[in-house]
């Protein structure tokens, strides 16, 4: 069983019960990168030449991501890790948590390098109602795992586990982060902030793996605990995701009060809805919004292999573990 109270045999990595988690761990190790590999000087020049509204968007999104990575970590450490029995899942989770920390530090590296009023930016998430509402949403489910936690062996306890995982992994990482990446990568399509975009390539590569783990975990827990498969619970999960999308509307309005070239609040909302439908279907729920993906250019940004001119750009495709034994 994936979820439950820990027992001594849960410390055995072999025989592996959930090899998919081990595979994700190995891939995550290969994906290791560091923020200092990204030079930002050219991006600083781009930033100087951006419009006020564009700069606001960059700052706003950084203000959200920097603490958000740590919120994810808190949720994983307190709401997921303690209730998982699988040793290979534990392996993966610690690497994921290192990655969240690395992302947080990476955003901090950008924050500290760019000409920002850092005090202000670090406080935005506490002072902006639309951003605070998103954090509150995540915290609501996390608190149930940490402060008023139910017995994990009971169906209600397991439901809380899933609710928290859906909020953190599916809504926060799988929907909100994805829309943030789209916004950040859009600058590169206009030949701005290209190095920062290389960093986002890496963050997105990591997050795609986080999502693979999270979705697989939710589906596997549901599979092992058929009693959770009720209409009411399905509707509740669906509503959590829809509420997550609803909270994004006010946030996107604050992100783009007037809009910039190529992006405005409605455009981002539609992207959020499109991605949310994808997540609903991945959980086995029906799509809710049925809208098209407005960001066709994402095919160039993320969907195909990237051939990097390594004299000009950090190659973000490399993986650090070679099969040195080979024999």
């Amino acid at each position, binding site marked *: 069983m994936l979820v439950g109270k820990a027992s001594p045999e849960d410390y055995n990595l072999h025989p592996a019960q959930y090899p998919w988690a081990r595979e994700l761990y190995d891939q995550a190790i*290969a994906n290791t990168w560091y923020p200092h*590999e990204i030079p930002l000087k050219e991006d600083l020049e781009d930033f100087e030449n951006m419009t006020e509204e564009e700069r606001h968007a960059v700052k706003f999104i950084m203000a959200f991501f920097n603490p958000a990575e740590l919120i994810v970590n808190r949720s994983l450490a307190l709401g997921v890790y303690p209730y998982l029995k699988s040793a290979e899942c534990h392996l993966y989770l610690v690497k994921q948590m290192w990655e969240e920390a690395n992302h947080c530090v990476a955003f901090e590296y950008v924050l500290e390098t760019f000409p920002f009023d850092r005090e202000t930016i670090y406080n935005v998430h506490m002072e902006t109602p639309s951003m605070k509402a998103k954090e509150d949403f995540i915290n609501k489910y996390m608190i149930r795992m940490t402060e008023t936690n139910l017995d994990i062996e009971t169906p209600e306890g397991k439901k809380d586990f899933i609710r928290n995982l859906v909020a953190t992994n599916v809504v926060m990482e799988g929907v909100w982060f994805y829309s943030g990446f789209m916004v950040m990568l859009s600058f*590169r*399509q*206009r030949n701005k902030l*290209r190095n920062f975009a*290389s960093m986002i*390539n890496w963050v997105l*590569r990591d997050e*795609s*793996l986080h999502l693979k783990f999270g*979705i697989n975990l*939710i*589906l*596997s827990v*549901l599979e092992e605990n058929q009693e959770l498969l*009720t*209409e009411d619970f*399905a*509707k509740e999960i669906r509503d959590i995701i829809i509420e997550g999308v609803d909270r994004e509307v006010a946030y996107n309005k604050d992100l783009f009060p*007037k*809009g910039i*070239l*190529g*992006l*405005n609040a409605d455009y981002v909302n*539609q992207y959020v809805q499109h991605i949310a439908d*994808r997540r609903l279907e*991945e*959980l*086995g*729920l*029906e*799509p*809710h*919004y*049925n809208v*098209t993906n*407005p960001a*066709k250019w*994402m*095919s*160039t*940004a993320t969907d*195909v*292999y*990237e*051939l990097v*001119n*390594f*004299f*000009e*750009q950090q190659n973000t*495709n*490399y*993986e*650090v573990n*070679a*099969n*040195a034994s080979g024999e």
Partner: protein
Amino acid sequence: MNINVTHRNGETAPFDADRINRSIELACRGLTDPISKVTQIATETQLALYDGVTTEELDEATINSALQNVKDDPEYEIAATRLLLKTVYKRVLGDYETENEAELTRLHKEHFKKYVAQNIADGLFDERMANFDLDALADALDLSRDHLFKYSGISTLLNRYATKDTQQKPAETPQYFFMRVAMGLSYNEKNPTEQAIKFYDKMSRLEYIAGGSTNISAGTARPALSNCFLLEIHDDIDHIAQSISDIIKISKSTGGIGASITKLRASGSPLSSNNTTSSGPTPFAKIIDTAIRAIQRGGKKKGALCFYMENWHLDFDDYVDWRHNAGDDYLRMRTANTAVWMSDEFMNRVHNDQDWYMFDPKEVPDLNELYGPAFSKRYQEYIELAESGKMRTFKKVPAREQYRKILVALQTTSHPWLTWKDTVNMRALNNNTGTIHMSNLCTEICLPQDKDNIAVCNLASVNLTAHIKGKEVDWQRLEETVRTGVRHLDNLIDINELPIPQAAKSDRENRAIGLGMMGFADVIEKLGFSYDSQEAYDFTDRIFEFMSYMAIDESANLAQERGSYAHFEGSAWSKGMVPIDSLKVLVEQRGDTIDVDLESKHKGLNWDILRRKVQQGMRNATLMAVAPNANIGLVAGTTPGIDPRFAQVFSRNKISGKYLDINTNLVDDLKERGLWEKVRNQIIQFQGDIEPIAEIPQDLKDVYKTSFSTSPYAYIEVASRAQKWVDQALSRNMYLETRDINEIMNIYSTAWKKGVKTTYYLHMKPRHTAEQSTISVNKRASLGKSGFAGLRSAAGASSTPSATPVPSPVGEQSAQKDFVCPVDPQERLQCDSCQ
């Protein structure tokens, strides 16, 4: 939303949709189904606007709207290209109000004189630019050749090569650009105007393209036209300091650098001035790594340099780690590249599973100068000294272990690149002045250097694609292009202004040029072959033999007209040798280990006649080198160098932007068979690999492979066939799917055995990429799990309330509906995306 547009003069006016639509209509003229394209671009443009948008951003919005549809129909790229061209015409020619092509052509010619005169007056152009019949040149300008470009070509040209105005915006049209370069290489011709038109015609038809530095600087007041510099850093503090200064100056004048550090004494080696010891090469290299980062070559591009070290250096283990992403940043190079300069002795020791010895260069000062049998002999003597305790220090490792370590580093950090010093030196026709200690930044140059000579190479590349008629090579046109290219490069040397006296001297005395070739994979596809076929290998042989013959012949002609290069006497050329003869030398010296066919595949070329002519004199120490062409390949709109098609669709992340590259050869074939619209989404879904797509017939799959599905041995074979005829080397990019180190060791050993001189960057196939955005993704389906869907199928019907579709601004655009996978598990079994 009310949208006002901010004009250049600061005034605002309400957004005029009709005006934009009209310009989009013009850009879509003649395309298939233009009305739907215009609607699509116009609708998406409006979505991208905001109140206060500038006119410049408005142009950008229309272009980006066209571009984002290229994945569905590559014809949108034509519209984007036309829209981009219009912005540059307006900027250079002033706001014109004509939709008439003939009128625009007239304006474009008329403005040319003013463009030249103004730039000379501003001190931007060389004063010699006035010594032409400008009316005749204006008359030769052919604006219709702008239609030969792809979007990425124009964009790269404008961004990288075009002269800029004070706002850093392109200040010349593409045709002015070609004419500027042509003029800038014709000053010393008897009839400069006539020759400039000849160069212009070849370049503007994209038959060959000059190297990057020439494109940037030809015709300007500071003509630094060389791309490649190769310098040795000697083991004394003054020379190290001077080298750092040289590197900064060379970087500033847009050159890429190869720098050998083999001679620097190892860490712990005693200093003679006092009883302290040296810190070894790494800290000095770090200074250089930081220095090149400070320089912005020609605007936005960082300095670029590749270090070379021989693998017998005591600090070679540290060297291999230079590019690791973890570890002490002070011991890591973030910008500079690394290459290893390996001997036959080492490869043989790997093969025979013997030990490999590493020394402090201070104790083995002559080793770096030796190659071939002389190196092996001296190396053996040093081993004996070491084993008998007569060396201060040495290290011993199994040769295979070090080879493995090199390849592990290569797999994980793409460095060091593998290059073979004995193949380079034993095949050189030009090393009568000294040993070749390194290759260059892109591993295609083989020139000797020493303390007084910084080697320089001057580049241009022939675009093979522009020489294909139907399914045939137009040999006559190819010959003309090669001859023109050689003349262009030889002219360059007398105009070139180099920042360092040691480089200027070497350039003048050797007149080294490197004519390359691009479009190889593109042409192979057009001829209907796959990259890894016997036909492709034989074609490589033929085409390079032909180009080499013509290039050598033209240099011999120029020697008769203008005299031989200063160091011709004593060179292998002066003994009547041509590149294939040097391969015979290598075969003899190395023994039976070279696995390559020495026969000519191009009947009708009489090499004996050429040998006799060469013996009379050569104008240039070297003739051919196949550069990577990462930028000029884009300008020419073809595959760069001898590179394979990276994938059928992929993106290029470049300084001038991120472009989607779709293989239009494949698209044309698919459209012809009525398959394109059925498979285009799957081509993106499978990241440019058509192998898994059931609808595509096998004969197309055989031709259109990706760089990762092509056998890596094909890259070796193509390079070895070309290398037979190329007197310098080729930037052989490598692409691997396998991560098995033993297999990789074998691939690289094969390269050495087949006489390949150098390899270049290694691209590993990523095992994991980001979740796709524009493609339907469902991890549950691919995991075969049901999640909450189990609930619905158990209940027999969908019980979740059906979704209310939210009206979407983009939804009404057109039939751009994303493919949606069926929800029912039984239906999913029928769905390709869910299998």
